[in-house]
């Protein structure tokens, strides 16, 4: 492993830990401080500190150390985790984040400016510590060699009560070369508890002439006093996990387990046993006994031996075995997920895309050849390719929860700044969507959330006069709806001022004052460029991003945004995004000689062409269905064939018909972006390559539906919408 790779892993891990820490802190803020949450915060800080130590990132270590000290006091119940401390710790988390980013930018020893920023925080943390120290006992000093009869033997050999963890570790030869120093692990371990005894195992050290000065030959037997978990100790050695032999025995383990340890670790059994004795883990008698018996009856499990001898009860052995099993199982669960470079995934998706295109052309040739066996084989292959596609895309799917949870911090901070009391309710965190979409939706959502808090939710005083609870509520929700993911940002504020918006739009020349607009249309104006609620700008919305940018970003993702609002009750912004950006199930339709693909999820049904004479709408089982002719949209020459079809499209609760010549069936569509040349073309969202090698355009359904709606008279459109 390259040190830079390791550093990258560290940086990623730090950022994840900081997110965890923040989430836990916010949860603490919301509810009664609970041990689990405090522990989570502490763990995060602690792990960051430890890992930073490995990379000798001193600024992070020293700062996190202070944070950890405070957290430690909280954890031991000596310091209350109040509002002010939570706010301070959140700020500290941010500072650590900044330091981590600094490292990413190359400031190994800290950007001097950043370090200065950290000082007030350290001072504030110091205040908390000082408060505590006023009535605390002096810090226990580290166990060092104390004058004794036998200074070397620090724990008496006879009283092996083994109430400490026993850690046995042999480092791999490459550890040093990989830039890891076993010393740092041990130093780190020392920060978690007390190293009561260490024995350095030098058995593997070869004769001087065979020594490779850069290989590591050492191992350690460590008696370790602490109140931590096995996993936490394992984590200390996480960076060398694959490169060392690590056995961790919990306090009061069975003697058999120590014997197993002696057998498992390489090194002379007698010497190892001796070391266990010196560590105070075993008494000499216990050791002799266990070793002798083991030699006498090699076939028997040590547990059995001990049971037969009556030194342990059978249940104890069972319990120990179950415990071991649990440990193993929890280990297995941890290793169920792996980190993969996003680039590699993208490459996989691209390859799958190519595979689908190639598969389509093979399919076509097979159909032309009309060999039944071939057709059958191809259809089986096609099913597999489809499965591969789905699982490849699934790999890129991530839950939106992480993105949502980021907002709890934003809401917390912004509410504080605004002096409003706002609660965030999150629903649908489990909803999955493509990673690339998730990455790009964060900023637009952030703006919507800030906007809702700043302009949507009223001040507590105003809320009181309106008879609403003093605490405003902001709801974030996500769910799947016909091949799209829908994200809603809902506030229970005052609603949008329809008349003001309309007046402003007229003033800005966006609409004609005489125009009659529906509420939806008026509200949609706030997303128009040039429409700004300038007189209301505060430091929050003054971020240089207008709502028009939000709309542009969402449109760039092939998504749409809509607003609904009720005066006095609140506003809901609905963002619809396609599930994936890469491959979709498409439906091919033909007009003249051209072929077009429509995302299958957006097709409700296909019906035979019929029309009310002289009108561009049809009667779909008693509903008015406005339609547009694809031939006209793309100005395709030639006469319509007899037996045209209508494809019923559905988008955001609205339906519209699309008149096409022929229906060509389902097709797996790999979306290829259109070049910049076509950026301004309407009704087309991308292109795809057919089995024949021809290019088909992918229709932009939302745009088509809108166009169909516009064509129908407003009254008809409204009737249609309410019917749908």
């Amino acid at each position, binding site marked *: 492993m390259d040190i830079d790779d390791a550093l990258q892993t560290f940086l990623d891990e730090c950022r994840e830990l900081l997110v965890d820490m923040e989430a836990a802190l916010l949860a603490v803020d919301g509810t009664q401080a609970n041990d689990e949450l405090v522990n989570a915060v502490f763990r995060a800080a602690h792990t960051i500190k430890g890992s930073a130590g490995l990379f000798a990132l001193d600024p992070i270590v020293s700062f996190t150390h202070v944070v950890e000290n405070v957290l430690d006091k909280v954890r031991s119940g000596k310091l209350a985790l109040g509002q002010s401390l939570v706010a301070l710790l959140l700020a500290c988390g941010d500072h650590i984040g900044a330091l981590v980013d600094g490292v990413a930018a190359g400031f190994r020893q800290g950007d001097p400016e950043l370090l200065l920023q950290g000082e007030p925080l350290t001072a504030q943390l110091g205040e908390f510590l000082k408060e505590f120290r006023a009535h605390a006992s002096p810090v226990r000093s580290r166990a060092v*060699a104390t004058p004794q009869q036998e200074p070397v033997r620090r724990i008496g050999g006879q009283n092996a009560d083994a109430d400490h963890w026993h850690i046995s570790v042999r480092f791999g030869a490459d550890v040093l070369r990989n830039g890891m120093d076993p*010393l740092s692990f041990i130093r780190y371990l020392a920060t978690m508890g007390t190293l009561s005894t260490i024995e*350095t195992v*030098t058995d593997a050290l070869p004769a001087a002439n065979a020594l490779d*000065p850069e290989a590591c030959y050492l191992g350690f037997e460590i008696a370790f006093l602490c109140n931590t978990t096995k996993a936490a100790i394992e984590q200390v050695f996480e960076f060398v996990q694959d490169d060392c032999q690590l056995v961790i025995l919990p306090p009061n383990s069975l003697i058999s387990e120590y014997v197993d340890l002696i057998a498992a670790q390489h090194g002379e059994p007698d010497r190892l046993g001796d070391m266990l004795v010196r560590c105070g883990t075993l008494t000499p008698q216990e050791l002799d006994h266990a070793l002798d018996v083991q030699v006498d009856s090699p076939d028997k499990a040590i547990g059995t031996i001990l049971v037969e001898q009556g030194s342990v009860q059978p249940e104890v052995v069972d319990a120990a075995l179950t415990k071991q099993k649990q440990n193993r199982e929890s280990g297995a669960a941890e290793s169920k997920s792996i980190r993969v470079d996003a680039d590699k995934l993208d490459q996989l998706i691209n390859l799958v895309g190519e595979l689908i295109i190639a598969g389509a052309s093979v399919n076509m040739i097979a159909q032309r050849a009309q060999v039944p066996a071939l057709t059958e084989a191809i259809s089986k292959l096609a099913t597999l390719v489809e499965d591969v596609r789905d699982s490849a895309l699934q790999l890129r799917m991530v839950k939106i929860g992480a993105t949502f949870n980021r907002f709890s911090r934003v809401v917390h901070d912004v509410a504080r700044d605004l002096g409003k009391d706002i609660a965030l309710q999150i629903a649908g965190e489990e909803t999955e969507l493509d990673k690339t979409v998730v990455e790009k939706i964060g900023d637009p959502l952030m703006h919507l959330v800030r906007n809702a808090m700043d302009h949507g939710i009223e001040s507590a005083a105003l809320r009181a006069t309106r008879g609403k609870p003093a605490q405003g509520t902001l709801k974030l929700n996500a769910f799947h709806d016909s091949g799209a993911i829908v994200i809603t940002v809902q506030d229970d504020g005052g609603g949008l001022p329809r008349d003001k918006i309309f007046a402003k739009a007229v003033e800005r020349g966006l609409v004609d004052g005489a125009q009659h607009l529906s509420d939806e249309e008026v509200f949609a104006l706030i997303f128009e460029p040039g429409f700004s609620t300038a007189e209301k700008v505060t430091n929050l919305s003054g971020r240089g991003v207008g709502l028009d940018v939000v709309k542009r970003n969402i449109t760039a993702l092939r998504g749409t945004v809509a607003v609904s609002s009720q005066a006095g009750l609140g506003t809901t912004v609905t963002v619809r995004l396609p599930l994936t950006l890469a491959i979709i199930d498409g439906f091919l339709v033909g007009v003249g000689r051209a072929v077009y693909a429509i995302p299958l999820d957006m097709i409700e049904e296909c019906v035979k062409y019929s029309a009310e004479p002289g009108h561009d709408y049809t009667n779909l089982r008693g509903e008015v269905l406005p339609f547009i002719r694809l031939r006209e949209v793309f100005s395709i020459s030639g006469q319509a064939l007899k037996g045209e079809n209508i494809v019923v499209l559905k988008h955001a609760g609205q339906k519209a018909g699309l008149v096409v010549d022929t229906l060509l069936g389902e097709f797996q569509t790999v979306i290829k972006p259109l070049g910049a040349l076509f950026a301004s073309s309407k009704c087309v969202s991308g292109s795809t390559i057919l089995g024949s090698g021809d290019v088909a355009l992918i229709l932009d359904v939302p745009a088509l539906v809108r166009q169909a709606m516009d064509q129908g008279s407003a009254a008809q459109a409204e009737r249609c919408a309410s019917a749908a």
Partner: protein
Amino acid sequence: MSAPNVLRIEGEFTIFRAAELMPVLLAQPPVTEIDLSGVTEIDTAGVQLLMATKKEALRAGRELHLSGHSPAVLDVFELLNVAAFFGDQLVMDSRASTAHARS
């Protein structure tokens, strides 16, 4: 016994210099004393090298002392509890404590 051959190591005694220091430590005529007072930093590789040198000396029945342990060396020796391995007089934490050789 021949005249003492004192080797003084200065600066870092770490993995970065392990390859360079090994031949010096194992040079002929054999080193009888290693002066560690100038060591500013020592890591596992350094400790390991010292141990190998000591082992080699023991094998050949020669004397090898470490002396003048700098704070950096003391810190690591104490952490790893290896003072006894070398069997030299050590002063730890300003409390006199004599370490006895066990090997």
